[in-house]
């Protein structure tokens, strides 16, 4: 464990530490007890991996160059190394500036440390970056598994000078000497040279059957054998060969990277009128809001079922797409956004169904701009990928909308990044997809991949559909949303249609609302007429059915006409007036009610008697006709009560059940909407508090620190971070360690190992006690000590 790094961290100002934990929030979850804890956590492979993932291509290259140097490097030296790679792309001044920023950033994030005259990578970085810049393994590693005899022969063949040390050390030393490598290269045939050049910038290893064959420089059959016989290539397995890093660096002529640009690639694309793009995006944004509303309204009446495996059936998605008049992918997107925004969720009493939530009712009454911001931010933050709907997963099962399998952890991150690239474009530029992908690749080179490119492409397509971009140009309100400063709604609002409080009535029995209606009028007219077409305006159609619906809900014909007259800018057309009165004329002519039992008697005077009896008040009897009474009480109660009153009634069987109409729309409780943390990391006060706590803990820790010692003959117990650091150190130096290990049966054992590599929670090492290469689970290693 590098104490220098710990000391350097300790020497950072509070402000710098705050910057560190803000940039790498995973370091303070949970908050380490002291600075040493912080240092060791910063050195764990996963923490370093995350920090490296955030680096752009240039900064990463700077760090790679740094790790390739044997010791501390001055900034000037670093610059001259880099300038070879950037020669074609940037001038000296530009490189200087970029390097300054990159070094500062590396120090801020604790990936490199030391002053400008002695920069070093933080502990763990070199291992995490291995192999850096596409170079092969070090010669020491390549030839690790060659026997001393083999190496002796090889050294003899290439005429290595006699010197003390093991054959491996001698070979390593030789390959580290450029002059020697140059000499060896001159010996080989042009074909062999060409193969080497291929390996120098390409992948530094290759497959070769029977790689461990015996070859001598004099009897080499093929170009590859020539190289193997000279140690310019080494077998790393039964069927693989690799180019030693030293040779690779020589072939690259001192450059670590082939061509490197200190500035990100430019975004390219068509230029459009920003105002037009804003309007187009706003139009799309408004459409989205309306579509989501329509979806929820439809589903509240006729909800699709939840599949047994979760999610929405393909058939239901198709139906929804048809209903919303959208292509399937867009319908899937709308459904997913509504879900992410917490507007729909699985619920229902008997079978699970997709229903709007109570949150939908709250959302519905907001203004369109607020509604959109809610939807768009839910989309930006969700970790689900609607673009994958309809495809098949690894096990060839279809991926359904709303299915849990649609989650992809990097989705939100890629989306956020893509949006911030879009937001960084100059006004009016519609960047091409390719240039956005190129920029993303530059910004996050370690996260590049076909998969992430797809996610980014989905993001571009969806941003357009949602109305973040218009004509490919990031809109003003879109920028507001990415900034997250709450200005998005304000920027969007003036572009959206303003609510109107009137409609135009026409003789074909339609009403056109030339904009979104004020909520009262909107609700009323939605009751009295059916929606025929939606968009900026809404077209409603009056029909017998819809008028009847309005009458059913308690309006009278005169009410309806009065409301129409009040809200219509044009006179109410005669056919509409006629329709309303005509429907009203027939409305309510037949009356229907519920009763649970009835009393029938051919003699009306007996029924008069029953009603007049005070005891019958509890039975809630109602006279429907002279000879019929209806009651709300059950037949059995009615029978008992009438008997108690002194009558002798008999029960009558009744065919058919009374239908109880279903409630019109239903709601369910959704899970609380998960708020994904923004890209900015922890809140400033959290970071500050974490730093304060660590400082305090550190002081206490240093006061009581004493060297811990294990009992004789037992491996001392050590913390897992210490173990990992010690193992990393041992791998780097090729030294042996003594570990305590719990075997598969749980017995404590101790072994002497020569660690080779560590990955995925396992250590691969040569076990001297058992004379074989084994894999050891890191979590079962109880402690570690030097063999001495």
């Amino acid at each position: 464990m590098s104490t220098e790094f710990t000391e350097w961290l300790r020497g950072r100002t509070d402000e710098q530490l705050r910057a560190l934990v803000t940039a790498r929030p995973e370091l303070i979850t949970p908050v380490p007890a002291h600075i040493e804890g912080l240092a060791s956590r910063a050195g764990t492979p996963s923490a370093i991996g995350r920090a490296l993932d955030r680096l752009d291509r240039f900064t990463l290259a700077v760090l790679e160059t740094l790790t390739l140097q044997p010791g501390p490097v001055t900034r000037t030296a670093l610059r001259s190394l880099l300038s070879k790679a950037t020669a074609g792309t940037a001038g000296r001044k530009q490189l200087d500036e970029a390097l300054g920023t990159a070094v500062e950033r590396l120090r801020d994030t604790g990936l490199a440390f030391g002053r400008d005259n002695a920069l070093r990578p933080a502990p763990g970085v070199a291992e995490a970056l291995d192999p850096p810049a596409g170079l092969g393994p070090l010669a020491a590693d390549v030839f690790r598994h060659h026997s001393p005899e083999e190496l002796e022969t090889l050294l003899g063949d290439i005429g290595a000078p006699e010197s003390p040390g093991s054959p491996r050390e001698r070979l390593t030393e030789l390959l580290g000497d450029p002059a020697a490598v140059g000499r060896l290269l001159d010996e080989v045939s042009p074909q062999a040279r060409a193969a080497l050049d291929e390996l120098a910038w390409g992948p530094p290893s290759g497959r070769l059957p029977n790689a461990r064959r015996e070859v001598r420089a004099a009897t080499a059959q093929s170009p590859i054998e020539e190289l193997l016989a000279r140690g310019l290539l080494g077998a790393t397995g039964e069927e693989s060969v690799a180019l030693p890093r030293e040779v690779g660096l020589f072939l690259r002529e001192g450059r670590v990277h082939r061509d490197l640009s200190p500035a990100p690639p430019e975004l390219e694309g068509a230029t459009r009128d920003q105002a037009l793009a804003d309007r187009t995006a706003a139009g799309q944004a408004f459409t989205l809001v309306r579509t989501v509303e329509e979806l929820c309204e439809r589903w509240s009446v006729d909800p699709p079922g939840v599949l047994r495996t979760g999610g929405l059936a393909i058939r239901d998605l198709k139906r929804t797409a048809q209903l919303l008049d959208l292509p399937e992918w867009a319908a899937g997107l709308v459904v997913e956004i509504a879900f992410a925004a917490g507007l729909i969720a699985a619920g229902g009493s008997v079978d699970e169904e997709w229903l709007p939530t109570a949150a939908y009712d709250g959302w519905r009454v907001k203004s369109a701009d607020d509604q959109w911001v809610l939807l768009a931010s839910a989309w930006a933050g969700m970790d689900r990928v609607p673009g994958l709907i309809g495809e098949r997963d690894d096990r060839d099962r279809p991926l359904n909308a709303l299915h849990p399998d649609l989650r992809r952890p990097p989705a939100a991150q890629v989306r956020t990044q893509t949006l911030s690239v879009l937001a960084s474009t100059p006004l009016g530029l519609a960047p091409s997809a390719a240039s956005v992908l190129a920029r993303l690749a530059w910004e996050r080179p370690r996260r590049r991949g076909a998969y992430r490119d797809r996610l980014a492409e989905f993001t571009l397509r969806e941003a357009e559909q949602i109305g973040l971009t218009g004509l490919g140009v990031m809109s003003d309100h879109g920028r507001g949303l990415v900034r997250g400063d709450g200005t998005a709604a304000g920027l969007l609002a003036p572009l959206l249609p303003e609510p109107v409080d009137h409609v135009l009535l026409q003789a074909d029995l339609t009403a056109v609302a030339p904009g979104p209606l004020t909520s009262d009028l909107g609700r009323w007219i939605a009751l009295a007429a059916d929606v025929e077409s939606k968009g900026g305006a809404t077209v409603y159609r009056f029909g017998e059915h819809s008028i009847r619906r309005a009458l059913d809900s308690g309006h009278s014909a005169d009410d309806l006409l009065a409301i129409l007259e009040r809200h219509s800018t044009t006179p109410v057309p005669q056919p509409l007036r006629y329709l309303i009165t005509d429907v009203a004329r027939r409305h309510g002519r037949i009356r229907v009610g519920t009763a649970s039992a009835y009393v029938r008697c051919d003699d009306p005077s007996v029924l008069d008697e029953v009603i007049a009896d005070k005891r019958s008040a509890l039975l809630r009897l109602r006279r429907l006709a002279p000879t019929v009474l209806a009651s709300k009480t059950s037949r059995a109660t009615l029978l008992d009560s009438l008997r108690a009153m002194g009558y002798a009634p008999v029960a009558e069987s009744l065919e058919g059940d009374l239908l109880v109409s279903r409630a019109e729309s239903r709601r369910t409780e959704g899970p609380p909407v998960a708020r994904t943390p923004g890209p900015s990391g922890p809140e400033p006060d959290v970071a500050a508090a974490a730093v304060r706590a660590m400082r305090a803990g550190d002081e206490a820790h240093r006061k009581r620190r004493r060297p811990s010692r294990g009992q004789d003959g037992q491996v001392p117990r050590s913390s897992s971070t210490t173990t990992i650091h010690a193992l990393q150190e041992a791998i780097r130096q090729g030294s042996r360690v003594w570990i305590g290990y719990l075997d598969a049966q749980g017995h404590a054992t101790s072994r002497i190992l020569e660690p080779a590599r560590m990955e995925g929670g396992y250590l691969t090492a040569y076990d001297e006690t058992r004379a074989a290469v084994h894999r050891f689970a890191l979590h079962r290693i109880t402690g570690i000590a030097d063999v001495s």
Partner: protein
Amino acid sequence: MNDGPLIVQSDKTLLLEVDHERADECRKAIAPFAELERAPEHVHTYRVTPLALWNARAAGHDAEQVVDALIGFSRYPVPHALLVDVAETMSRYGRLRLEKHPSHGLVLTSTDRAVLEEVLRSKKVQPLLGERIGPDSVAVHPSERGNIKQLLLKLGWPAEDLAGYVDGEHHPVDLDEDGWALRPYQKEAADAFWHGGSGVVVLPCGAGKTIVGAAAIAHAKATTLILVTNTVSAHQWKQELIKRTSLTADEIGEYTGTKKEIRPVTIATYQVMTTRRQGVYRHLELFDARDWGLVIYDEVHLLPAPIFRMTADLQARRRIGLTATLIREDGREGDVFSLIGPKRYDAPWKEMESQGWIAPADCVEVRVTLTDEERLAYAMADSDERYRFCSTTPSKTRVTEALVGRHAGEQVLVIGQYIDQLDELGEHLDAPVIKGETRVKERERLFQAFRDKEIQVLVVSKVANFSIDLPEASIAIQVSGTFGSRQEEAQRLGRVLRPKADGGGARFYSIVSRDTVDQDFAAHRQRFLAEQGYAYRIVDADDVGEENPAR
């Protein structure tokens, strides 16, 4: 925020506020690529369909113009998805072209190889094609010119037909503008057709489509085949052509059930052309009888399916379709587009009316209340008998009599669907009845008598739906119809829309039984009228007597 007259809906309908000051300008801008769907009094609805967009492309408009028009006139932001869709759809037209190749004859060429490959992979297209000539072109069997256009349209890649036309046998024809002149829109329509090569002209009933046909013949100056719906209509075409052009009676042949003349200008009925004996179309030779330079299709929206198939073989001849509406109740608008041609001219009814070319009409729906016995009988009738029952109820006869009485002295047409009902009406009104079995001679005699005002009331069945010319009918009373047919409503209204000598308005009554399926179907037809912009009123049968006829 714009203050445009147009609102673009997400379902690709366009709402145009007609009272807006820029409404006229906007109408002109969007008319090429959007079909007028409804034209009620305040807000007109246009629909942007792929066919409409391709029609616009065929007329030389590009996506940019369409997008500009939408954005320029729209009151609210236009959803981006719609603009993309418009551009995408329009770009599909013309990627494939049918052209004439000097050595290979008819070839299908493409500016986009991927599209060509896509359509070549279609199993249905393959048999129509010959050898591959180059990477971007493939030979087409000349006889399949129509079929391939139909198929490509179905595949969503409509081909632009640039293969040209044969001139046909020359025959001198001129318009004989003596005492009359082509109306400006008739001239525009004929010119638009001629420049486009082939296509459809949409004009309201009564706007003089026959004359547009005559002008087209005069342009072509070639032998012409005219396909019409029935014999009466064939006679009228003949008379009209003699009157309007330099053609003489000897030059015009009739090819109908009774006569089989083939002359430089031949008029045939759809019925004859589609007569089959032993599964063979007997009269196909007519198409090859002469080297026709022009084929005219009257009432394209009624074109029967076999005629479409025959038309597929006539793609090298110039074709003009005449119709009042492109709406086909069988949804074969795409076939009209690919086989006859794109829409070349269109004029909204209301505008023609305001310019005085057709008579303004007043539509009145009269609601008849069934008597209690009738209601009971209706409730008990079988469901397939119900419509007939309620549309022929005796109450209607009484109301019809009352209406005819009210309009005594005016020329009245009573139109109906059911023969026994019409016979009964004829008896009550003491008026002649024209139905399917009435002989052609007798029909023409009655029509002439009606024109000469010797007869004032004429009862006609649906045989008179098409192409009869009754210039002086100012009142039409519809007692029953073919369910809710919009097309029929348009035709019947057309009966009374022809300009009257006195310049007076026309009135169109529909008698409807209240609270029955008749009312539901009537609602459908009435909606069509309202959408065409005719104000309609609904009155109760009891009020008919009191109403002021002068209104």
